[in-house]
């Protein structure tokens, strides 16, 4: 067993050696003055490889290019909370200048985002917030109420305000999913929906295959189902695919979120009557602009503060945004009203993103 003792000694020596190396202070990053630039921005989506987040990143890159900042995208490949925490840990150690995050969980990401803030790295949440205490601000793509009510009323319209409907959501923990769902339910309480019955809410974990299977499950379980609301840009096309494969086009109607390029065929063939989305490139653009302004110190996230963008967006033609107070009492930046896509405008937007 001598060898294990020798090995122990070696391990200790190794740590000692790394201590010596550690003595040298970090060059470059620490001395970089605030207010100057260019800055390094870490862009952390919920996960990798999804068209929605890819298009957000496109917008972010546009803003970074405008300022001459360096931006890079890192995210968990399994869309998990722990994976995202690990990613944030590593970008903190890299001493990036700002972090933009679409949080997989509002609370679980808070400790590590707080750590980043304490290390002097501003955290800007976009798409899905982290707790107010752990962020500078949150770029909200659309008010939860507007989206939730919008989806429910679109559903009512296409089904003629009667019949059984179901919701296909992403994950039960994601804060945006929960809030949208609660606003959908709130809208359904209105007397004009008295013949509409929400029979089930199922979760596809934002994975295409699982969402597809869940949609098939809904079709099987509720033969009289008249509509499905897809609460994410993965759920909606998956539901459309299920409806198309079962030959129910026209009988079972789909509304929800979607990305024009992936939804184009379903809209044109009539599976999906209508879907909503904010301009994802604008979302990335606004968030990355704010990240840059946080680095320079021009933006601190106080209520009433305004920010001027380099170009107009779909929601704000003058390109000026203001920090407002959200439904939960926390300050945030609202991107603007969502767009409605249907047969009339789908082809134009599908070519864009």
């Amino acid at each position, binding site marked *: 067993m*001598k*060898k294990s003792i020798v090995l122990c000694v070696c391990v200790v020596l190794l740590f000692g050696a790394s201590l010596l190396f550690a003595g040298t202070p970090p060059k470059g990053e620490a001395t970089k003055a605030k207010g100057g630039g260019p800055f390094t921005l870490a862009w952390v989506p919920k996960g990798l490889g999804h068209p929605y987040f890819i298009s957000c990143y496109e917008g972010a890159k546009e803003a970074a290019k405008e300022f001459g900042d360096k931006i890079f995208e890192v995210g968990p490949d399994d869309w998990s909370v722990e994976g995202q925490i690990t990613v944030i840990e*590593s970008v903190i150690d890299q001493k990036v200048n700002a972090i933009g995050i679409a949080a997989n969980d509002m609370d679980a990401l808070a400790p590590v985002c707080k750590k980043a803030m304490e290390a002097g790295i501003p955290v800007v949440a976009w798409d899905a917030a982290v707790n107010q205490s752990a962020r500078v601000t949150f770029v909200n793509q659309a008010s939860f109420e507007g989206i939730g009510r919008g989806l429910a009323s679109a559903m009512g319209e296409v089904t003629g305000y009667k019949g059984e409907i179901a919701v296909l959501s992403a994950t*039960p923990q994601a804060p945006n999913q929960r809030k949208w769902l609660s606003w959908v339910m709130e809208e359904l309480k209105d007397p004009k929906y008295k013949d509409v019955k929400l029979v089930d809410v199922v979760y596809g974990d934002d994975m295409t295959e699982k969402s597809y299977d869940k949609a098939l499950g809904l079709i099987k379980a509720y033969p009289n189902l008249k509509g499905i609301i897809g609460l994410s840009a993965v759920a909606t096309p998956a539901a459309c695919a299920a409806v198309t494969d079962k030959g129910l086009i026209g009988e079972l109607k789909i509304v929800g979120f979607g990305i024009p390029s992936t939804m184009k065929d379903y809209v044109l063939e009539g599976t999906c009557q209508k879907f909503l989305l904010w301009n994802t490139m604008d979302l990335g653009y606004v968030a990355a602009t704010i990240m840059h302004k946080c680095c320079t110190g021009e933006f601190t996230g106080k209520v009433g503060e305004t920010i001027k963008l380099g170009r107009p967006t779909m929601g704000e033609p003058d390109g000026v945004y203001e920090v407002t107070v959200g439904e939960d009492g926390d300050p945030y930046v609202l991107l603007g009203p969502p767009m409605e896509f249907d047969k009339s405008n789908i082809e134009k937007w599908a070519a864009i993103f």
Partner: protein
Amino acid sequence: MPNEREKKKRLPLADMLKTWEFTIFMLLIAVFVINLILSPDLFRVANLFDATLTFTEKSILTLPMALLIISGVIDISVASISAMSGVILGVCYKAGMAIGYATVIGLAVGLSAGLLNGVIITRLKIPSIVVTLAMMLFYRGVGYILLGDTAVRDLPQRFGLLGGAYSSTFIPIQFMIFILLAVIFGFLLHRTRFGRLIYIVGNNENTARYSGVRVDRIRLILCGVTGLIAGLSGILLTSRIGSARPDIAQGNEMAVITICLLGGVYIFGGKGSIIGVVIAALMIGYVHYGLSILNVQEQVIRIFTGGLLIIALLIPTIASRFRASVKHRRGGS
């Protein structure tokens, strides 16, 4: 193996060089050196300790898992036990229990889950991989039933210190726990009678039985210990992310088994050492950290880890083939 012992007396150093522990220790050094070259500024001691936070929960689980595998049993339900322990801790806290008691209950849940696995494996004589596959689904399900779609938030601040997360201690508490446990498990396996029995049981179950070793009792104890540590791992993770959730620790069982195998634990039992496992845990952890600090995407890191395991498993086979062929050629000429 008297023959081997004789050899060791003659050439201790040469013998040591041939050991598996030495091979992966060299790999660990290589990982450090490569990391120092690739990111000299970032690979600093504060960061090194900080980085342990992302893999300590898995690392502490490799210790009992190594013992378990050496004894010829495997438990793939550990990640689910972790999640269940964390969830039950959260539920107890939400019900108004003091966080200290809730933690003890979380540990107790882990211990009983492990013992339940052990009882089923030893009494019903069902292969452990089958039993724990079923229990993996069962325990995960319990977590989801208890918390459903929600998570317990707002766990107290001081509980967060346990996970070492962002505390002011230079060496995270988690990592100290890992080192302490490594010493305890190392002592248990390599220095006690119980440790020797573990090897005997894993080497040949039947022989052990006929020589009067209480095989089932040893395995039952090890299952219980594994469950207990799995519970501890879940509690540390819950503490680190500051909320109890049913979906934590997904896939940890595979990460833990990977580390054990890389550390030289023989999958069919009877072989392995704690020091090997500890080195493997550090190596995998720092490979992951080093790559993620270079912003290598997670998918690529996975390929890397898989490749490392394959290479590690191939080295002894290739080496023995090489040796055999050399011997053969010498004998032939």
